[in-house]
């Protein structure tokens, strides 16, 4: 809301300069967002919160200043000196719940024309375009007193009759009612929206916009000015339904001053007579639903309990006195009735805010409450551990929007029955590509890849932890929100100072194993995956015990092909983990085990086996050999090629033997190892590598 200081000073003699006034307003809850210096004036840009429609006017701001500076408020001139004739007009309020008061005046023989300089000037300072003197005056009064008015061309109102009612009331339920508003648009009106009607037809959408057919035009001489109070929620519903937001609806839906509306009407008539020389006729004022505020009890003790202050009754009254409340003082409490323009004051807490607002927030001492020890909770700690493992492994964290489009899921070739197609749809997305909530983090990761490669970034280690949203719960209607972690690894094959022949797949797999190691999860396994968007020969599903918790693998060349990546086809490894599923396996208590007292003995052996036999099978077989002296088994070499027959591969493994209570003898280890080797040769149908 733009407020010129010079206009303000007309109503309150503020004993302060512009910057002090701006500061004062800010500190009582009317934040001055900007101060604009003009030639002879200063305009404040005041941010008025939705609870304070009373401050959407010059008089409203002046009223606040009059309270804080304890200076009287002057009302603008609105005396109607001579009224010509009676109002031969019939007004019926048919829906009294939606229209609490309706007043109007007829002004005749107006000379429509350009507005005088002073009027145009003030409107311009408030960023309102001047149209003609009649429309300008309704806007002027709106800015000055905060009350929206509407001027009809009297000659176009049929039957000298005004009715206020909804289509349901006037025409009956189901009747089709259309009105063309002054912006030239035809609106079919919802049955419960409030309209203004003449004898025959709707002539305005109450509180929102006037009708095209009764609009003031260049030939208008006589007008009917409307000043009314419409139910805020009703105006808001209608404004939303039509998608029409106006200065008028903005104020009505926040709540206008039902008592001010008569002053506003007279002020407008007065100004029209002054500016456009009209004859003011009699007034009609129908007020079926009077403003009768309930008394609010405010306990002195409660005020201090909530604020942490020790205010006296007198302090409190000093704060409240300028605000227009009707106050009754009792020994332990106040009984307060707020004025019609303060419908936001409904309960004790609202009055407490008024007291402290005027008293000054800055005068409240800052005092810490008694402290206890806080906690992050176990889940957050585990998540933080997982993040740390990725950070230490060189992965940089990204945050993507939680949105995706159906295209993303199609691109991954995800099956029709897959739960990742069971996504949550946004009714009003900003873009079609962002109309679903993510069910997997991979599409975002791939977008990060495309962006970064396009900007010449040649090595990427990225990860993200975020929620995915699956399905909808039958009872709550809410989706299942699961915490996922996804990572992407990409390295352009360029000449490097130091050679690293490790396959990209193992780099990412290694990090997953490091994470499991960090979380002390041991019962995991990697089993060839059938995710449709992964390279079938370089991908694995990740299991803990028998539960699938994620997958890792190279992105399928078919997916890479359709990406907007120029020049080369990159090798990209991705992984995704359901972190929530890891939780039950991580809560192990650490218990110390004694270090071994006796030395170990190691033996290495290389086998030649069918190349289809996977390493995990060999390790599993070796581990199935019953001996309590085998401490550890690991594979240290896999080789295919020269000296190894076609269709075979060489696998070398190392076994570490140790006995708990003594030193092992070489001969005994030799015998044990030979037996183990025989066992594995039998299982794999393999041979010793020569």
């Amino acid at each position, binding site marked *: 809301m733009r407020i010129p200081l010079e206009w303000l000073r007309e109503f309150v003699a503020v004993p302060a300069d512009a910057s002090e006034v701006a500061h004062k307003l800010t500190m009582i*809850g009317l*934040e001055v*967002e*900007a101060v604009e210096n003009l030639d002879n004036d200063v305009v404040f840009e005041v941010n008025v*919160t*939705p*609870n304070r429609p009373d401050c959407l006017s010059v008089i409203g701001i002046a009223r606040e200043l009059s309270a804080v500076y304890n200076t009287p408020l002057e009302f603008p001139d609105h005396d109607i000196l001579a009224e010509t004739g009676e109002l031969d007009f019939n007004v019926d309020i048919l829906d009294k719940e939606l229209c609490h008061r309706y007043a109007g005046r007829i002004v005749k023989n107006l000379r429509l024309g350009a507005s005088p300089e002073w009027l145009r000037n003030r409107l311009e300072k408030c960023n309102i375009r001047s149209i003609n003197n009649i429309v300008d005056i309704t806007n002027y009064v709106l800015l000055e007193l905060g009350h929206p008015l509407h001027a009809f061309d009297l000659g176009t109102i049929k039957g000298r009759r005004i009715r206020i009612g909804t289509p349901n009331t006037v025409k009956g339920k189901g009747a089709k009612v259309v009105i063309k508003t002054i912006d030239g648009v035809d609106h079919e009106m919802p049955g419960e929206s409030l309209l203004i009607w003449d004898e025959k037809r709707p002539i305005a959408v109450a509180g929102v916009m006037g009708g095209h057919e009764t609009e003031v035009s260049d030939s208008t001489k006589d007008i009917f000015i409307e000043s009314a109070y419409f139910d*805020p929620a009703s105006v*808001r519903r209608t404004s939303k339904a039509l998608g029409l937001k106006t200065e008028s609806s903005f104020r009505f839906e926040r709540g206008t001053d039902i008592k001010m509306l008569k002053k506003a009407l007279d002020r407008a008539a007065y100004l029209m007579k002054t500016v456009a020389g009209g004859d003011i006729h009699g007034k009609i004022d129908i007020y079926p639903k009077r403003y009768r505020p309930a008394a609010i009890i405010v306990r002195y003790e409660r005020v201090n*309990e909530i*604020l*942490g*202050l020790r205010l006296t009754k007198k302090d409190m009254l000093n704060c409240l006195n300028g605000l227009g409340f009707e106050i009754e003082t009792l020994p332990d409490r106040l009984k307060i009735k707020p004025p019609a323009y303060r419908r936001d004051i409904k309960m*004790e*807490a609202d009055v*407490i*805010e008024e007291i*402290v*607002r005027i008293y000054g*927030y800055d005068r*409240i*001492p*800052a*005092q*810490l*409450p008694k*402290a*206890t020890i*806080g*906690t992050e*909770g176990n889940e*957050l700690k585990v998540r933080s551990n997982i*993040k740390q493992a990725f950070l230490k*492994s*060189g992965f*940089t*964290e*990204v*945050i*993507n*929007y*939680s*949105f995706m489009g159906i295209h993303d899921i199609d691109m991954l070739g995800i099956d029709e029955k897959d739960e990742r197609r069971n996504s*949550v749809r*946004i*009714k*009003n997305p900003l873009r079609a590509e962002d109309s679903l909530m993510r069910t997997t983090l991979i599409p975002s990761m791939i977008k990060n890849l495309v962006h*970064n490669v396009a*900007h010449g*970034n040649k090595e*990427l*280690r*990225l990860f993200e932890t975020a*929620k995915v949203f699956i399905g909808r719960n039958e009872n709550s*209607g*809410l*989706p299942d*929100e699961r915490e996922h972690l996804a990572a992407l690894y990409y390295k352009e094959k360029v000449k490097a*100072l*130091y050679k690293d022949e490790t396959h990209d797949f193992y780099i990412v797999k290694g990090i997953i194993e490091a994470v499991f190691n960090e979380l002390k999860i041991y019962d995991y396994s990697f089993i060839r995956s059938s995710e449709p968007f992964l390279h079938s020969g370089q991908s694995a599903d990740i299991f803990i015990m028998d539960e699938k918790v994620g997958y890792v693998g190279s992105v399928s060349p078919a997916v890479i092909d359709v990406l907007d990546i120029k020049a080369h086809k990159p090798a990209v490894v991705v992984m995704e983990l359901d972190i929530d599923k890891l939780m039950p396996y991580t809560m192990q208590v650490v218990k110390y085990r004694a270090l071994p007292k006796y030395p170990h003995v190691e033996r290495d052996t290389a086998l030649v086996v069918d190349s289809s036999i996977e390493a995990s099978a060999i390790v599993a077989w070796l581990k199935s050999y019953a001996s309590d002296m085998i401490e550890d088994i690991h594979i240290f070499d896999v080789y295919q090629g020269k000296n190894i027959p076609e269709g075979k591969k060489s696998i070398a493994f190392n076994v570490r033997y140790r006995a708990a209570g003594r030193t092992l003898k070489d001969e005994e280890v030799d015998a044990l190892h030979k037996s183990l080797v025989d066992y594995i040769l039998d299982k794999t149908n393999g041979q010793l590598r020569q």
Partner: protein
Amino acid sequence: MEDPKQTFLKELSSANNLSELANLRVKYLGRKGIITERLKSLSALPPEERPLQGKNINEIKESIEADLDSRESRLKHEELKKQLLSDSVDVTLSGKFIPFGRPHPINKVLSEITDIFVGMGFSVEEGPEVELDYYNFEALNIPKDHPARDMQDTFYITDDIVLRTHTSPVQVRVMEKRKPPVRFIAPGKVYRCDADITHTPMFHQIEGFMVDKGITFSNLKGVLEAFLHRMFGADTPVRFRPSFFPFTEPSAEVDIGCILCGGAGCRVCKGSGWLEILGAGMVNPKVFEHVGYDPEEYSGFAFGMGIERIAMLKYSIDDIRLFYENDIRFLRQF
């Protein structure tokens, strides 16, 4: 008899490596070495000459031993030097390393804030991002058809389900689960149907909440001032001014003195010298009524802040969209 020392010294000077030196040692001091033989031959001398000759030869022996040892140690030193030289690397080449990853700046700021509040006795709670209208609005005293809904452009899933527009619904969910006292923060993602240079459709907030017997506005100021001083420095001015949130009453907007211009006024603070950083207030009794807390027995405060704004101020970032482009040249700066 000729003096073996002279020949020895000549030979010693031409022994240029450890094996030649070892040969020399054998030649003179070995079991059949020249000096050893001399010592053996002493027994052939007349008894009166033996002591003198013996002393003589022993002196030569000791001197040769000393010379050999010293030569050996010098040669060893030289050989080590030669070996180190041939094993040397170009220390100016860069080392082989994988730089640690970086946390996203938003999460970096988020955990910094979380740590401060955990230190002040707050625990950490979470709530769903796809939320019922009831928790996001109704229970927070924002009824349908209320203009306060305009403060937040909402993404709708159905008429009753929204993407949460703030982290405040966590208040209600926690109060439904637990009796007072409660004291927690709730960090997380929130969504608004808005996108331009200063708005992204998704961003992050931290909600703070505390309810107990006798909690006052003064306590709210205490907690937030302590937090802001830890976050932005102990000298940072803090200002509370009245504002409006449907779920708090009284409500406050909390400003800090502009950290960029020191309060003199600049583009970022729009010349005011102040930066709006937090919304806060005393919990509205109507919110308590929704969850069955007795507002006569308990009072409390709530506050909320946007993380992007704090991160932008902290790192002087001028375009909020950079956070969600995820360009590693940006991300690796934090």
